[in-house]
C-alpha cells in the first residue's frame, strides 16, 4: 500500500455515529471549556455566548446530516479555521509578549472558533472523539489562568461530560455495551488514584516562562499623595486603629501597613485571603521597613523617588553576591495597601502603572490603589548566605556613618535592656552569633499571644515585654529584638509584610490571609545587605512539593472531619439504601409473598427449589419432607399459582390466614427434615392447615 493509499485510508470517513449520548457529552465538554475560559476572563460574554449557541447548533446539524454529510460544508469550515489562525497571528503581531492578555486570550478565542467550526462536521465517532480532545485544550487554556479552587467546579463538570462521552463511545463501538455501576465506580476510582499519584510524583511547576509576567490593573485610581500609603478611602493613611478582620482600619490605612507601626494597638486579623502568590520558593514578602523607634511606635523616614520607566520597572541597586532569581506574581483578592510586596531583593517589577516610587529601604509604593483583580509580578534576587559567611561579616562596615547611626538610634537609653542583651550575647563571638543567641533566648523565655493587656500610658513596649509579662505577638517580639540589637551596636530595623501562607497544591499558589501579616527584624551584614530574622516563630522555608503537601492536607482534613456527623450521615444513608433495597425486593403480590415464604421454608429445611421445579412440585416435595400426607404445602402452592396465573385471588381474610399458617408449617418441615423423613414423620401441627375455603380447591 502506497503512502497516498495509507493517508487516504486513515482519512476515510467512518460510519455515521448514531449515539445521542455521545454527541450531547461532547457538546457539553466543549461548552464547559468555553464557560471555563469565560470565567477566567479570556473570552468576552459575546464570544462565549455566541460560541456556545453555534456549537450546540453545529452538533445538531451534524447529527441530522450524519448519514449524508453536506459536501459543501468542509471547504467552508476549512476556510473558517484558516481565517481564525490568520486572525490569531495578527493579534500577536507587533505585541510585546509579556502580558497575559497578549497571548492567552487570543489563543482561547482561536481554540473556541476551531471547535465551533469542527462542530458542524462531526458525523462519525472519530470526529466526536476529536471534539472531546479539543475540549481538553480549552480547559488547559482556562486552567492556566485559574488561581482559586472555584475552577474545580468547571473541572468536575468537564470530567463528568468527558467520562460520559468516553463510556458512550465504548457503548457505540461495542454495539450496545455498557458498564455496570460497579464498573463505573471502579473506573472512576482508578482514574482518580492514578491522577493523585501522578500529581504527587511530578515536580512542582516552575514559573519560568518569559510569557508569564502578568500585570493587570483592577481599575485602581491614582492616589492624591505621591508615595503616600493609601487608606481604603483613597486618602493618605492615618495612624491605624484596630480594624476589621481583613486588615482595614476604617479610618484610613491598613493595620500594620501605614506610615506608623503602632505596637500599642491590639486586635486580631481574620482568615480572609488578601492575595494569592505564585512563587518559585516561599519567602517573606516584605512591604515596608521602619527605622525610627520612639518607644511605642515605629516610623519610617524614607525618601521615595518616583521612577517613570514604565513596566517593567528596574529597581535601583545592585544584586547581592550569589543571589538566586525568584519570580513572584501577586494576585490581589482584597482591597490592599498600595505597597508592592516582594521577596527581598526586588530587581524588576511588572506593574500596571506608569510610575512606581522606590525608597532606599526596599519599600516600593504604588501610585494607584490595589483592589481585587489587580496583578503584578516581581523578579527578585534572593540571597541566602551561609552562617559561616555571615559570621565573617562585620556589621560595622558597609554603611555610611549617618546611615549606620539611623539604625542604631534609640529614643532613650535602655539600661536594663542593654544589660540583658550584653549578658545574653556575652559568649557570642560574632554579630551573627549574637543574633542567634538573642533569638534562642526569646524562644526560651517569652510566649506568643495576641491576647495581651493594652499598653498603659507612658509605658515602653520593649520594657513591658522583656521585664513584664513576656507575652506578646510579632510586633512586640521583633521590636524587642531590634532594640536589643541596637543596644549592643548592631544595626537593625523593623520589617513588615506577609509570611507565605498555606500552599495550595492544586492551584500552585500561596494563599496569603489577613492573619499572615507579620513583623520581623532585619540586620545589616556588609556584602549581603539586610538579612531577615524572625524571632517570633519558626516558619519552615523548605520548598513544598505538591504531593507531600496534598497528603498532609488530606491527613489534616481527615483529622478535622466531624466524625460523629459523618458516621450519622453514613448510617442514615445505609439505612435508606437498605430500605430502598427492601422496598424493591418486597413481593408485590400475595402470590409472590406465598411463593417466597415457601422457598424460604424449603431452604431452612435444607431443600432448595430447583430451577426446573414449579412451585406446586416444590411444595409437594416439602410435604414429603414434612411427612404431611394432607398436602398442606401443595394446597398453598396451588392457591398461589391460581392467583398468579389464573386470576383467582383469595379473599383478604383467606389470604391472611394462609400467610399465618406458614410459620407452623415451616417448623414442621424443619422437624421433618431433621429427624422424621417423608414417611412416618410427624404430621403438621394443629392450626397449620390450609384454609378450607381456599379458592380453586
Amino acid at each position: 500500500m502506497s503512502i497516498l493509499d495509507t493517508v487516504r485510508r486513515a482519512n476515510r470517513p467512518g460510519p455515521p455515529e448514531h449515539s445521542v449520548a455521545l454527541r450531547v457529552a461532547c457538546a457539553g465538554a466543549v461548552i464547559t471549556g468555553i464557560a471555563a475560559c469565560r470565567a477566567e476572563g479570556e473570552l468576552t460574554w459575546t464570544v462565549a455566548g455566541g460560541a456556545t449557541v453555534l456549537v450546540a447548533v453545529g452538533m445538531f446539524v451534524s447529527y441530522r446530516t450524519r448519514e449524508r454529510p453536506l459536501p459543501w460544508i468542509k471547504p467552508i469550515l476549512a476556510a473558517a479555521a484558516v481565517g481564525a489562525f490568520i486572525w490569531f497571528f495578527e493579534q500577536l503581531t507587533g505585541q510585546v509578549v509579556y502580558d497575559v492578555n497578549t497571548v492567552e486570550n487570543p489563543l482561547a478565542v482561536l481554540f473556541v472558533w476551531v471547535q465551533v467550526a469542527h462542530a458542524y462536521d462531526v458525523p462519525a465517532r472519530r470526529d466526536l472523539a476529536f471534539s472531546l480532545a479539543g475540549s481538553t485544550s480549552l480547559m488547559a487554556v482556562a486552567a492556566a489562568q485559574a488561581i482559586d479552587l472555584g475552577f474545580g467546579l468547571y473541572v468536575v463538570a468537564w470530567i463528568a461530560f468527558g467520562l460520559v462521552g468516553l463510556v458512550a463511545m465504548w457503548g457505540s463501538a461495542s454495539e450496545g455495551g455498557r458498564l455496570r455501576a460497579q464498573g463505573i465506580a471502579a473506573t472512576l476510582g482508578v482514574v482518580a488514584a492514578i491522577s493523585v499519584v501522578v500529581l504527587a510524583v511530578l515536580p512542582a511547576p516552575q514559573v519560568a516562562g518569559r510569557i508569564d509576567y502578568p500585570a493587570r490593573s483592577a481599575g485602581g485610581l491614582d492616589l492624591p499623595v505621591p508615595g503616600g500609603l493609601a487608606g481604603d478611602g483613597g486618602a493618605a493613611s492615618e495612624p491605624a486603629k484596630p480594624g476589621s478582620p481583613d486588615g482595614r482600619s476604617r479610618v484610613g490605612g491598613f493595620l500594620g501597613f501605614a506610615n506608623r507601626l503602632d505596637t500599642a494597638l491590639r486586635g486580631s486579623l481574620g482568615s480572609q485571603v488578601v492575595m494569592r502568590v505564585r512563587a518559585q520558593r516561599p519567602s517573606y514578602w516584605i512591604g515596608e521597613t521602619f527605622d525610627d523607634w520612639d518607644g511605642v511606635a515605629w516610623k519610617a523616614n524614607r525618601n521615595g523617588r518616583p521612577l517613570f520607566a514604565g513596566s517593567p520597572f528596574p529597581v535601583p541597586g545592585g544584586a547581592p553576591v550569589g543571589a538566586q532569581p525568584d519570580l513572584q506574581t501577586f494576585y490581589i483578592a482584597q482591597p490592599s495597601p498600595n505597597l508592592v510586596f516582594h521577596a527581598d531583593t526586588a530587581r524588576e517589577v511588572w506593574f500596571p502603572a506608569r510610575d512606581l516610587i522606590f525608597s532606599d529601604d526596599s519599600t516600593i509604593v504604588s501610585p494607584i490603589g490595589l483592589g481585587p483583580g489587580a496583578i503584578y509580578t516581581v523578579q527578585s534576587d534572593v540571597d541566602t548566605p551561609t552562617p559561616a559567611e555571615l559570621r565573617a561579616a562585620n556589621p560595622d562596615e558597609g554603611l555610611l556613618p549617618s546611615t549606620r547611626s539611623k539604625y542604631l538610634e534609640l529614643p532613650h537609653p535602655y539600661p536594663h535592656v542593654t544589660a540583658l542583651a550584653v549578658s545574653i550575647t556575652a559568649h557570642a563571638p560574632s554579630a551573627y552569633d549574637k543574633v542567634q543567641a538573642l533569638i534562642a533566648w526569646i524562644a526560651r523565655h517569652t510566649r506568643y499571644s495576641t491576647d495581651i493587656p493594652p499598653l498603659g500610658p507612658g509605658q515602653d513596649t520593649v520594657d513591658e515585654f522583656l521585664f513584664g509579662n513576656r507575652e506578646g505577638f510579632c510586633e512586640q517580639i521583633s521590636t524587642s529584638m531590634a532594640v536589643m540589637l541596637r543596644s549592643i551596636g548592631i544595626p537593625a530595623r523593623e520589617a513588615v509584610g506577609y509570611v507565605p501562607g498555606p500552599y495550595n497544591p492544586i492551584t500552585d499558589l500561596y494563599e496569603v490571609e489577613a492573619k499572615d501579616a507579620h513583623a520581623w527584624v532585619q540586620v545589616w551584614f556588609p556584602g549581603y545587605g539586610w538579612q531577615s530574622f524572625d524571632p517570633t516563630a519558626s516558619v519552615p522555608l523548605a520548598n513544598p512539593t505538591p504531593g507531600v503537601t496534598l497528603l498532609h492536607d488530606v491527613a489534616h482534613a481527615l483529622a478535622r472531619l466531624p466524625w460523629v456527623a459523618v458516621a450519622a450521615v453514613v448510617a442514615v444513608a445505609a439505612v435508606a439504601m437498605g430500605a430502598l433495597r427492601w422496598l424493591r425486593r418486597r413481593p408485590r403480590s400475595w402470590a409472590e409473598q406465598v411463593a417466597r415464604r415457601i422457598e424460604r421454608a424449603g431452604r431452612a429445611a435444607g431443600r432448595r427449589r430447583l430451577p426446573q421445579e414449579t412451585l406446586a412440585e416444590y411444595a409437594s416435595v416439602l410435604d414429603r419432607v414434612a411427612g404431611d400426607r394432607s398436602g398442606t404445602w401443595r394446597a398453598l402452592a396451588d392457591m398461589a399459582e391460581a392467583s398468579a396465573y389464573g386470576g383467582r385471588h383469595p379473599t383478604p381474610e383467606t389470604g391472611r390466614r394462609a400467610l399465618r399458617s406458614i410459620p407452623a408449617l415451616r417448623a414442621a418441615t424443619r422437624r421433618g427434615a431433621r429427624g422424621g423423613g417423608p414417611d412416618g414423620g410427624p404430621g403438621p401441627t394443629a392450626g397449620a392447615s390450609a384454609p378450607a375455603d381456599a379458592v380453586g380447591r
Partner: protein
Amino acid sequence: MSPTAGRHAPAGAVRGGTRVPRPVRPFIPLLSSVTVLGAWALVAHNGGAGWVQAVGDIVAGTLLVGLVGPAAVVWRARLRVVDSPTDATAGMPVELLCAATTRVGVRPLEPSGPEAFVGPGRHTAADARATVTLLPGGRGVHHEVVAAVSSAAPFGLLWWTRRIVVRLPVALHVGPRLGAPLSLPPRPDDVGGSSTRRATTDVGEPRGVRPYHPGDNRRRVHWPATAHAAELMVREMEGPTAEPVTVTVRLPGDPAAAERLAERALGTVVALTDAGTPVVLDTVEAGGVRVAQVAGRRAAGRRLARTVDGHTRSEGVTVTPAPRARTAGRVEGATR
C-alpha cells in the same frame, strides 16, 4: 491445513490460544497520547499553573485507564458456548449460541467467521446470549473453537485482543459440500409385481401387513390387523430393491483435491441412497479403515468429516457391489 479427524486439545493445554492480551493497531493511539501528555507536561511544568498540572494529571489517568484497562477486561473475560449443532456443511454458516461474562467482540479463527459481540449490553440482560457464526471452509470434526476476544472497555480508546480456545458442548461434524455424483451404472429394474404403473416408495415406508415371524420386532405388531385376522400380524416395511453397493473413498494428500473428492463421494452416496440403494461406505479414519452402511446424507457427511486424507497409496472414489453381510449389520444414521 487439512481437517484432521477428531482434533482434541490435550487436557489443560490451550492449543492455538495465548493468555497474554495484545493491543490492536496501537501506534496511533499511543503516539497521540504520548504527544498530548508530553506537550501538556511541558506547558504545565513551565507555565507555573497548578490547575494545568491537576487537569493534566486527570487526563493522564483517563488515558492510562483507557489504553491499558481493556487488557484487564480481555484478560478476565470468559466465553462459553451454550449450544451448538452437531452437524454442518463446509462453506455454510454454523451458528453457535454463546455467553460471555462481559461485553466482548468474538471473532472465530478456527473455523473462521465474522465478528460478533457477546455479553451483557444496554438492551440485553446480564446473562444474555448471542449468536456467533462460523464459516468452516472444509470438512472436519471440531471439538473446540479458536476465537479472538477483544474489548476496548471502558473508554473505547484502544482495542486489546486475546486468542482463546472454547470447548464446544458437542462435537461439530462438518461434512463436505454436496458434489456431483460419479456416473453410476443403471439400476436393474425390479420386475416383481403386476402393476404397469408403479409409484416409487422410499425405503422404510410401510408396505403392508403379514403374519408374525419369530424374530420380528414386537413394535411392528399391527393390532387392528391382528384382531381382524385372529393371529399376530406385523407391519411390513419397504425394503431396498437394489443391490447394496460399497463406496470406497480414499482421499489424496492435497487438501483441496481431497475436499473435491469428498464432495463427489458425498454426492455419490446421496444419489445412491435417494435411489433406494443400500450404501456401505468404506473410509479411512484416524483409527483405521472403517466400513459400515450409512442411511443418508447426515451419516455420510459425518463419516466423510472424520475421513483422513493422504494416508493411502490409492486415491479416488469407487462404487462396487457390496457383500450382503455388510448390509445386515447396524446402519449408521438410520432412524427407528
